[in-house]
Structure formats: C-alpha cells, structure tokens
C-alpha cells in the first residue's frame, strides 16, 4: 500500500510527471527559440531551466478576475477537472518496468475515454467563461476534437489489435521482441500528428490562435486558474508522448541488467530517452509550420489521416492473420 502511494505521488506518478512537464516546456521554448534565432529563457536557473516554474509561481500570485457573465461554478471547478485527466492517465504508462502504477485489463479504453474527457472539459470551461473569443474557440475545439479523435483512436487501437491486448501494459509487453513502430510506421505518424492536434501545437493551435481570437479558450482565465490550465497543457504533453512511447516505441523496454534496482533505473532511462525523442519531434515540427484554418485541419484529418490510419489497421490485421 505504502509503495503504491509512493509510486502514485512521487515516482513515476504525480511529481515525476510534473517535473517532466516543466522540463519539456523549457525544452520547447528553448528549441523554438534557437530555431528562430533567439536565445529563449535565460535568467531563471542555468540556461533558464527554472523559467516554467517561475512562470507558474508568478501566475499563482496574480489577481484572479472572474468575468461577470461567466458560469462561476463551472469556471471555478473545470480547471482542476481538466488537470485530473493527464495526471490520472500518466499512472497507466509503464515507466520503471513493464508494470504501470495502475493497470487493468482494458485500460486502453479508459485512456481513450480520458482523452475525450479532457477535450470535453475544455469545451465546457470555454463556454463557461462566455466571451466572444471563447465562444468561437469552443466551436473550433469541438470541430478539431471530432477531426483528430478518429485517426487518433484508430492508431491506438491498431497497436492494441496487433498486440492482442487492450491494456497498455499488455501492449508494452508484446513489444519485447520488436517495437510496434516497425510494423505500423504510419500508425505512429498518424498518432503523433493527431497528438499535436490534441495538444494544440502549431499547425493545430487553432482553438487558441493568438492573432485571431486572442488566447482562444484561455482568454478569460487569470491567476491560479490560468496557472493550472497551463500546467495541464505541459503535463498533457508528457502524457501524450508517454502514450506514443508505450504504444509504438516499446515503452521502457530494452536490454537491462539482472539486478532489480539497476533494471528499474535502466527501464526509466530507456523510457526517458524515447520520450525525449518523441517530444523533440513534436517541438521541431511545431516550429516549422504556419497555423491551418479549422476547415483545412478537419479536411486533413478526415481525408488524409483517417484513410491512412485505416490502411495501417487493415495491414496489421492481415499481418496478424498470417
């Protein structure tokens, strides 16, 4: 019981996820800055590595302004509901071994539910703050969600079908001989692109397009609520990338020593390296593109990515049948 509690709160649960979230936000800003010929965060900590934490603390100090026309109850509750999703999801990702902190037979379905849940919460909180910009943003959010969810879920299910398992741990275990990405490269590509839409990274930062609708669904949030929402975005990146690693890159698997503690360390190291590769891929892609219009994004997901994901699924089914 104590061990589970420690696992859930310290490692590889809450704090570990949070730390990675901060680290990745710093990395994203640094990489984007260097690609754009800037220096990026520089002041807080060595090379500005503490900047995300400093930003969070600053936001926590700020005054919170609730719009007069907002639905106050939802407006207050929704940020923490939103924060739950990636934190909870992260518990199902195996980090320091094949076993995750929490796992059950069909947890892949639960993960899919969590992704839907977080999109739903964002729409709700966007409507709750009720300004012209958030109204437009929530319309975009819904449309973007129904666009990217289909290929995303197909890509996730493809991994499950191939591994004959609907639990993340089962899928990871099935990759002990060869990673899924070898059999489903297109599934991986579809997953990463759909993930970028889920995380609202350019070119899919449509619901929070700065130059069009101010800050999109974040417009009316300030102070603690904004801090929480921003934190959730960072943690979501860790969760999403962790999912990609587990489903396609063999999770924490790799050659490990026999000693149990050393093996755990090695597993964690493998996981982190793979995670880093995935987030670097996302960061480089996001810096190299312009924002699409919402109609163009939908068209892209439905007309290109969905058939691609379906073809990958068919290929995997045929491969499994042989």
């Amino acid at each position, binding site marked *: 019981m104590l061990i589970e509690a420690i696992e859930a709160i310290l490692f590889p649960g809450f704090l570990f996820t949070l730390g990675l979230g901060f680290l990745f936000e710093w990395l994203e800003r640094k990489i*984007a800055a260097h*690609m*754009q*010929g*800037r220096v990026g965060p520089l002041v807080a900590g060595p090379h500005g590595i503490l900047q995300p934490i400093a930003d969070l603390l600053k936001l926590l100090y700020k005054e919170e302004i609730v719009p007069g*026309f907002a639905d106050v109850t939802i407006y207050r509750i929704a940020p923490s509901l939103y924060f739950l999703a990636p934190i909870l999801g992260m518990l199902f990702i195996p980090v320091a071994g094949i076993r995750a902190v929490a796992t059950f037979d069909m947890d892949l379905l639960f993960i899919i539910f969590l992704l839907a849940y977080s999109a739903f919460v964002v729409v709700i909180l966007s*409507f709750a703050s*009720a*300004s*012209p*910009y*958030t*109204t*437009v943003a929530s*319309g*975009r959010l819904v449309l973007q969600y129904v666009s990217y969810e289909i290929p995303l879920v197909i890509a996730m299910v493809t991994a499950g079908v191939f591994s004959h398992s609907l639990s993340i741990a089962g899928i990871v275990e099935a990759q002990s001989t060869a990673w899924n990405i070898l059999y489903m490269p297109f599934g991986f590509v579809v997953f990463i692109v759909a993930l970028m839409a889920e995380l609202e990274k*350019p*070119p899919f*930062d*449509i619901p929070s*397009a*700065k*130059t*069009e*609708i*101010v800050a999109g669904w974040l417009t009316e949030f300030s102070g603690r609520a904004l801090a929480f929402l921003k934190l959730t975005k960072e943690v979501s990146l860790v969760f999403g990338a962790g999912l990609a690693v587990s489903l396609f890159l063999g999770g924490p698997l790799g050659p490990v020593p026999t000693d149990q503690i050393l093996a755990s360390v090695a597993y964690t190291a493998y996981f982190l390296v793979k995670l880093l590769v995935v987030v670097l891929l996302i960061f480089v892609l996001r*810096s*190299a*593109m*312009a*924002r*699409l*219009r*919402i*109609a*163009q994004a939908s068209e892209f997901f439905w007309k290109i990515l969905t058939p691609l994901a379906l073809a990958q699924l068919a290929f995997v089914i045929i491969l499994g049948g042989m």
Partner: protein
Amino acid sequence: MAEPKETRKEAGAGLVQYSTENLVPFGPIHPALKEPEYFKLYLRGETIVDVIPRIGYVHRGLEKAAEQRRWTQNTYMFERTCGICSFAHSLAYVQAVEGLTPYEVPQRALYIRLIVAELERIHSHLLWVGLLGHWAGFDTLFMWVWRDREIVLDLVEAIAGNRVHKSLATIAGVKKDIPDSMKNKIVERTKHLADRAYFYKGIVDTETTLLARTRKVGILKAETAQKLCAVGPLVRAAGLAIDVRADDPYAAYGDVPIDVVTRSEGDVFSLLHVRLDEIVTAANAIDYAVSQMPGGPIRLKIPPNIPAGEYASHIEAPRGELFYFVKSNGTAIPERVKARTPTLANLPTALELLKGQTMADVPVVLTAIDPCFGCMDRLSFVDLDSQKQWSWGGEELRQYGIKRYFPERKT
C-alpha cells in the same frame, strides 16, 4: 449595415447564440493589431458576414499642429507620422513644399533620396512579410525575417545616424551625404538582402501550411481595386501596373530604371510575391543609383518664407501612393497641410475583402494592406442619420478643448 440591430447580439451568452449571427469585437486592443483600431466582425459560424470599422483611436492632430510650426520644423514632425515609412512622409512633404519654391534640388540629393527611400521600402516589406508569418501562426518566419530587417536598419543608421526616423530629407536637399567609402557596404548589404528575398520566396512557395493560409485568400479583382481606389502593392498584386515611381517619376526615379512588379491573382500569396520581388527591384535600384550618383552639393540654403500658393505631391511609399497637399500664404508657417496615407486608401478594400472569409483569415486579410492606423487617423464628423459630414476648424477645436478641460472657464 442595413440590418436591424436586434438580430445582432454579442456572442458569448451561451450555446444558443452561436448558431445565429453574432458580433466578435476585433480590437481596439487585440494581439493581431499593433495599433488600436476597432472592427466589429459579424460572424455566422466562422464566416464573416459584415465588418464595421471604427477608426480614429490614434488621431494625433498632426495636420493641425503643422499650422503652428515653421516649414522646416514640420519636416521632422511629419516624419513622425509613421515609424516605418518615416522617410516617405518627410519626402512627400518636402516635395510638396519644393513645388512652391523656384529652386532646383541638387541632383546628388535626389539620388540620395532615392537610395534611402528604397532602403525604407526593403525595410517596410521585410517587416510586413515577417508580420504576415506571425499573423498566420508561423512565428519562425517572423523571427527570421525580422533578423534580416536588422541589416537594413543598420544600413539606414550608417547613412542617416538613426534607425527609424532618418531626419534626412529637408527642403531643397538632404541633410547628410553618402560618402564614397560607404558605397561598397550599401551595395553588398542590399545584394545580401535580395538573396534573402529569394530565399524567403522559396519558403513561401513550398511551405504547405503557409500556402494553405495565403493562396486564394482575400482575392482582390482588378475592377474592385480600381472601384475602391486601392493603391500600392495591393493593386499591383491584382494585376494593375500602377506605381508612382514609374508613372510620375520623382527624386531620381526618372534616371534609375524601376521594374514595376505585378501579379495577376490578387490574393495574399501574390501579395507576398509582389513585396518580396519589390525587395529585389529595390536592391537593384539602389545598386544602380549608388554607381551612377553624381557629385555636387546635397542641399541649397533657402529663406524661411515659402512663396504663397498650393501644391500637392505624391510619392510611392512602401505601402502605396502617399499624398501631401500644402498651402502657403507666403509666411514661414504653412496655412494648411493635408496628408492622405495609403492605409486610408486601402482600408475600404480590406473591409470588402474580409466579407465571406473566415474568422481565421481576419488577421491575414486585414493586414494584407499593411495597415498603419497611426498614420491614417483623421478627425471628421459624420452624422449617419442625416448623411451630414463636417469637420472642425481651429477655433471650434479650441472651444472644445476649453470646454473639455476647463469647464468652469467662460470663453
């Protein structure tokens, strides 16, 4: 505008209104606008049904202030009309004043004016290309282009001593000479900038997401452009070869060959091409002008009083045709100065282009004209109900000011 007011409500009061036509305020303070200006966007879903502008947030009363300053002082004040095409404003103004005087401006000064005006064009176009990247959500392009813009700013600083407000043009000449030692540097740097323009053209042509955002967006037809009196790169992108530099040469443009760049599509993509091509032609013109620059004096000394009369001058500012009208009563102070900036000429076109576009295109299309609201804003009164239009003279303004700030004082 003719629609009844009740059907249009502020968006955001919940789910119900999203399906109807609703108002999304764009400005006066908005991340896409660098200057305050208000546009009421009426949306149906994501599509724009109507746009109603409300201009005048940055009215500064420059024309009025000009009537209290000497002719030379006004040069520097009008330069401050705009922070980007500052030289264009001072150039148009001094040309208008020179039209009233009998003096012949030295040839060398005309060449220097051309060189600085073209440098400013490069600067302005680079700035716009970068901003377009920013508006379309392509921040990397924005940062790269603005890094290159530093080159031209440094060059301007080397010539004039200042990066933004050159303070170079003066009545009957220019204030600073370009020494021979600097010629190589100018040619080298502008050549480099032309190379960069080609590089950015490559990006614009190949980057799929940017193409998706700019191609077939905000298409301006040549007839519409003519009907709405659009000016500058906007009409050239629509296929009309209208350019004051070629049509009515001023400064040294008569001697220096200028290629008028035109495209036929009229969309934002072709505007990008026109502006990037104009960087190249500007670089060529600078190259030519530097090699052909004649010797001699750079300015004449003239008396402070300007002969009575009226004169209007127009030049091709980076954003389009810029008019200055001056009226003198023979004293050292102008009786009236009037400026018509390209933004004011292009705004009706931009608003027309916005209709039917989606919300996502607003920053791209609205700013395709490269708006400079600070240059544009003027004061005039319009009563929409009676269609009456009037403006205030000095005395009315004075009375208003007294009433506004000293309500207890009797006039």
